[in-house]
């Protein structure tokens, strides 16, 4: 036997098949915060259709595209026309008025994509498995809310932010650093308030059913129906003016306008909550209605999730 042969045999003698298979886990176990983050990330991915077939991506990404397209167009106009913002002050909106261009995208996103957060868990009974993990009903809902609000921020916070940053990069934005930071703060507050309100609404309706289609139709009906009904009450039959604060299609945007120091009357925002006699609703009424609607929607979701039977 040659030296080379003996080396091969020695090597063979040391060879092992590495197939550990299932084994005891001795690593770290992260806490509830990790579970909440895991569920929030997973839910956000599902809402956006990530890691799923292409048909699940169409709706959310179409809404996102619709939300960003005007901002990209305005930035393009300003880029092509020097001092565009000064020369075309009525064409290029500020970040507050920008929401008027993307109302449909936000409503569609909230109504059509967000039900994905709750409905499948109930329909497939996966909720029972979630609640057999370190999550409880409160932390489960927290994770879902984080996911829905976080994803909604893509269409409520991102586009005006892009607009302001894009204009600023072309010296057409706020005139000072202080003004720029103030605008950023307003955008952040407006984006968060819109996401909170639409997030609460888009969790409340799906919590009542396990069917995505019904949840989406119900959300649209609630948002658009409340707007139509309050318009009829306020303008058609000259009912109490404050009923306009229950127009769920307008209230969130009205709150956003107030954050930017704008009134929703026709001079600034044609779709705003102007009362029949032309004066805007008071900011107190708008804020109170916004907080009330958000809390009621959150309470409905809580009541439904707490009441869902998983084992009995």
């Amino acid at each position, binding site marked *: 036997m040659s030296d080379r042969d003996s080396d091969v045999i020695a090597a063979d003698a040391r060879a092992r098949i590495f197939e*550990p*298979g*299932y*084994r*005891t*886990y*001795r*690593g*770290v*176990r*992260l*806490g*509830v915060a*990790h*579970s909440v983050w*895991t*569920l929030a990330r*997973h839910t956000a991915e599902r809402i956006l259709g990530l*890691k*799923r*077939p292409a048909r699940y991506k169409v709706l959310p990404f179409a809404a996102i595209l619709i939300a960003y397209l005007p901002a990209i167009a305005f930035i393009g106009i300003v880029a092509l026309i020097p001092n565009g913002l000064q020369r075309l002050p009525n064409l290029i909106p500020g970040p507050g008025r920008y929401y008027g261009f993307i109302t449909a995208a936000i409503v569609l996103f909230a109504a059509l994509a967000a039900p994905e957060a709750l409905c*499948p868990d109930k329909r*497939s*009974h*996966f909720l*029972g*498995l*979630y*609640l*057999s*993990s*370190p*999550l*409880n009903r409160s*932390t489960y809902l927290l994770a879902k809310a984080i996911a829905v609000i976080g994803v909604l921020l893509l269409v409520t916070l991102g586009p005006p932010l892009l607009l302001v940053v894009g204009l600023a990069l072309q010296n057409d934005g706020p005139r000072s650093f202080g003004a720029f930071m103030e605008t950023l703060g307003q955008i952040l507050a407006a984006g968060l308030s819109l996401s909170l309100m639409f997030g609460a609404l888009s969790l409340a309706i799906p919590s009542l059913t396990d069917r995505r289609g019904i949840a989406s139709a119900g959300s649209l009906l609630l948002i658009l129906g409340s707007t139509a009904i309050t318009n009829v009450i306020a303008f058609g039959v000259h009912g109490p003016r404050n009923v306009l604060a229950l127009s769920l299609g307008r209230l969130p945007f009205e709150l956003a306008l107030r954050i930017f120091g704008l009134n929703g009357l026709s001079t600034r925002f044609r779709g705003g909550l102007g009362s029949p006699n032309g004066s805007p609703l008071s900011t107190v009424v708008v804020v109170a209605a916004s907080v009330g609607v958000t809390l009621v929607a959150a309470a409905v979701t809580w009541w439904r999730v707490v009441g869902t039977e*998983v*084992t*009995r």
Partner: protein
Amino acid sequence: MLGNIDDRAGSLNGVRPVVTAVEVTKRWSTTQALSGATFEIGDGVTGLLGANGAGKTTLLGLILGLHRPNSGTITVLGRDPWVAGADVRARLGYAPEHDALPPDVAAHDVVRHLAELHGLPRREATSRASDALWEVGLGEERFRPVGTMSTGQRQRVKLAQAIVHDPELLLLDEPTNGLDPAQRDDMLALIDHVGGDLGMHVILSSHLLEEVERVSASVVILDAGRVVAEGEIADLSRTAPELIVELDRDDGTDPARTLASTLQASGLSVAVEGDRLVVVALEASWVYDVVRDALADGGYSVRRLERRTASLEDVYLARAGSGRTI
């Protein structure tokens, strides 16, 4: 951060029961689901046996900390699951009775997701999801959407997601539901493997005596919300061992009654079944000698002499519905 798996050592030494329930009562509006349930569940595989509606799933919900008992106390791995729900559930695995998996998601993704929810970092969760699916025989199928799998495969995915995070206690609710006999055999073999080779404590909830008897060392029998029997199956089966004496009856006499009288006179507990069977309670080993002598002295023609122990079915039939506790 929760403790690591080494914490398990304290519960595997046999000193601390895995689950303890004392006078646990649970009501659902007008339905009394559990009524004063008291029992202890120790190491290994324990069957939770009872008819549909006996309170098994409610009990699993209490063990998971999803419900609060109306009265009584329940302790799981040394903690109250209602108070320390997150910590307790991090150490439990649960496979529910009904389909509970999203059909459009790959098995591997479901199992990995559940592993992460139970506190495993993403990288560990990914690797262990594959290991768990291989362990239940779905290695090659692990990237298939759950909705395209057969009932048997989906049951295996449920088992994989329950064991992926290496729990101390595994709760399996009717894991053989919807399986054909071959698949049921395979699933029971898997459960036996999980409870034996992988060293997990298992509570197997089932209404099927045969499968509980096959894989469980211990049993808790529920009937209409009451615990009617609990303990090791071997002990329960030894509750009333009997000696069966079957006699020939060729000459028209009544040998069974004659023999019974003789044995009763010797101080034994005896019953006659039909006209040929004498059943003698095996209260001590010397009973065999007394019976042998009586048979020899009386010149009986013996067809069968057999020691009969109560099967789990006998125990169940005797206890369920009677309202008695052992």
